[in-house]
């Protein structure tokens, strides 16, 4: 009866492993011919590759929250994160990551753009405050020379309540007369009211428009304006105007941000690293297989089979939980292959000892497994401790490593208990009968 259970278990595992291979295999072509269902996983759930494999950038922004109360701080951070995410989506990166990272008492927003083409543009756009505000003007007494720059220099500006906060929508329009692009503003009803009051107060006087604390335009108010519509004419190029409009629509940042860290990797460097790692990993796997067969002979074959099932199963788990594979992640996975064999070595060595003591093959294997298990468990737990602490403590470049190591170790324990043991049980029973 035990044998039948083991055989069933073995068949189940083999099917799982085969399914895993299909799920994990990245390309759907063999010899240039599309082969379905191989690679079905690639179609529905492609591998997520990290920055260091497909190139891209990681930006870390810090925002000065010292002036804010702590509950404000949380909402400001979340708001900041949301706005940045909207801005990021403009760049067409397939899976942008924007998240808050807390270190000590500093709060930062981390933006990861894998596969982005124009990093320079992204950095320019994402960190821009895009703060729009209207200010009233007070002319300083001067000697009435009326060039506009003199006016600017001598004018004092008073901030008003009318800022980009009240902006409902922004759009591009063209000034028919001058053919120049303009930015149209539509304020919310609250904003429209403020705008109405402001224009009413300042008829005949210039009203200054500032973007990011830079004076853009200072049109003279002719009339009270209701309905909250306004147009900024400034000296914009179409490009500049388009960018500003998208920034306004995403929202101004609640406070200026500071780029404290930038890590950019070019795509060519990334793909070269990927090729090399895959090649090295395959080589490492082959060398282990040769070694196991050479040293343990027939027993080694079981370990090799278990290993060949372990690889797709682990990859399937990693892919299934949407891990982003980084270069260090691949390294962690390759290392876990080296360790996965450990458990098998322990079981075999122990079984050999038991056979020497005179136990039957079957009993030796059971005993070998029973005695080896504490070592397997304890030594894997120590690696798990390392991996967990790594995962909790370090930056996202390293998290990939910790995660693949952790999953690799867990799956290897599973593969040692079920796959290797079941294989041995089934085949030993078969040879005994």
């Amino acid at each position, binding site marked *: 009866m035990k044998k039948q259970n083991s055989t069933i278990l073995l068949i189940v595992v083999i099917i799982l492993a085969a399914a895993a291979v299909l799920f994990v295999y990245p390309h759907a072509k063999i010899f240039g011919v599309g082969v379905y269902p191989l690679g079905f996983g690639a179609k529905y759930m492609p591998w997520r590759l990290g920055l260091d494999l497909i190139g891209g950038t990681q930006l870390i922004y810090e925002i000065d929250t010292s002036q804010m109360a702590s509950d404000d701080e949380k909402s400001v951070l979340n708001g900041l994160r949301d706005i940045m995410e909207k801005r990021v989506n403009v760049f067409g990166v397939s899976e942008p990551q924007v998240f808050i990272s807390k270190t000590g008492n500093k709060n930062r927003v981390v933006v990861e753009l894998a596969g982005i083409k124009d990093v320079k543009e992204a950095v320019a756009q994402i960190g821009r405050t895009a703060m729009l505000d209207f200010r009233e003007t007070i002319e300083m007494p001067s000697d009435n020379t009326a060039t506009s720059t003199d006016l600017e220099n001598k004018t004092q500006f008073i901030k008003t309540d009318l800022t980009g906060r009240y902006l409902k929508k922004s759009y591009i329009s063209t000034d028919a007369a001058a053919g120049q692009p303009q930015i149209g503003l539509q304020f919310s009803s609250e904003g429209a009211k403020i705008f109405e009051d402001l224009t009413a107060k300042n008829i005949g006087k210039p009203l200054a428009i500032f973007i990011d604390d830079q004076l853009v335009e200072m049109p003279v108010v002719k009339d009270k304006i209701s309905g909250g519509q306004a147009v900024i004419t400034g000296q914009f190029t179409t490009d500049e105007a388009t960018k500003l409009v998208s920034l306004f629509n995403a929202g101004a940042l609640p406070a200026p941000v500071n780029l404290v860290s930038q890590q950019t990797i070019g795509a060519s*460097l990334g793909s070269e690293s990927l090729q090399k790692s895959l090649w090295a990993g395959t080589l490492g796997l082959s060398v282990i297989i040769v070694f196991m067969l050479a040293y343990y002979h027939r027993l080694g074959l079981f370990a090799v089979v278990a290993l060949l099932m372990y690889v797709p199963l682990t990859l399937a788990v990693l892919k299934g939980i949407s891990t982003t594979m980084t270069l260090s992640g691949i390294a962690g996975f390759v290392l876990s292959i080296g360790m996965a064999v450990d458990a098998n070595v*322990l079981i075999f060595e122990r079984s050999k000892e038991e056979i020497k003591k005179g136990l039957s093959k079957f009993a030796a294997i059971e005993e070998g497994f029973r005695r080896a298990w504490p070592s397997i468990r304890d030594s894997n737990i*120590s690696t798990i*401790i390392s991996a967990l602490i790594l995962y909790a403590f370090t930056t996202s470049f390293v998290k990939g490593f910790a995660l693949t190591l952790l999953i690799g170790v867990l799956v290897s324990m599973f593969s040692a208990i079920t796959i290797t043991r079941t294989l041995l049980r089934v085949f030993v029973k078969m040879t005994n009968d």
Partner: protein
Amino acid sequence: MNIISHRAIFFLVSGILILASVTAFAVFGLKPGIDFTGGTLWQITITQTSADLTQASAEEIRKFFEVDLGVKNITVSPADNQSFLIRLSHISEGEHQRYLEALKIRVNPRGNPRESALIEELRFDSIGPVVGKELQSKAIWAVILVLLGISLYVAFAFRKVVYPIKSWKYGIITLLTLFHDVIIPAGMLAILGHYLNVEVDIKFIVALLVVMGFSVHDTIVVFDRIRENLLIHRQRYVFSDIINQSIKQTFARSVNTSLTLVLVLLALLFFGPASLQYFILTILVGTIVGTYSSIFIASPLLFVTSRSKET
């Protein structure tokens, strides 16, 4: 195979290695990379040059930055695939673009400076000093926590073994061997840093943590066997004999489990990506040292601890 009686030799070898490593550490120090100090690491290739700059050299590039752009504290070194690795202090994105434009013009004054085929940026990392410092303290904490975590776990796992030494002593000895396994690769990095300008970045810390996790594997295999033999043979044999027997029985296991790892590491070292080479090397050295320490240091230490109780 009498490990215990020859323990003096093994202690001596380890002692020398540790002393050498600590000295290297004290004299050369580790060379921290920008991960920890903040700064800029910039890797570029120059794919097209004008007639008078036929082969751009690292020295020329450095001079350009120092003289033309007024950048202080900059080093430029050639890297693989005919690229250059430029190191300077943390710069803003604005400065980054300015330098890039200036470099493009300098490299091909008659060309269009916006042409991106001229200079390819392989990598640009600029990390502010505060971020760097934080990573430093995070890294140190991680190492301490793993050391403690593993040692505590070993003490816990061996809690039922009271004779001839208490279980927590197993933990302490694990801690000592872990130190041993970590100091020697660190010493190696100090030497490499001094002679080959190899920098210590976050990968090195990861490597150390990995080494700690792995090196305990073999130690546990041996301790496990000692525990088992103690239960069975306690009355009949002296502790030193039990230890020797345990090591003999587990020798093949210890070596093989490390060997498979070493094989994989060698494959990664020689055929893997260049950026991971020192990382892999650190793990490799750490694993070999770790296996050595598990077999030849940890068990004799156990014996020495039990002896000191008897006197």
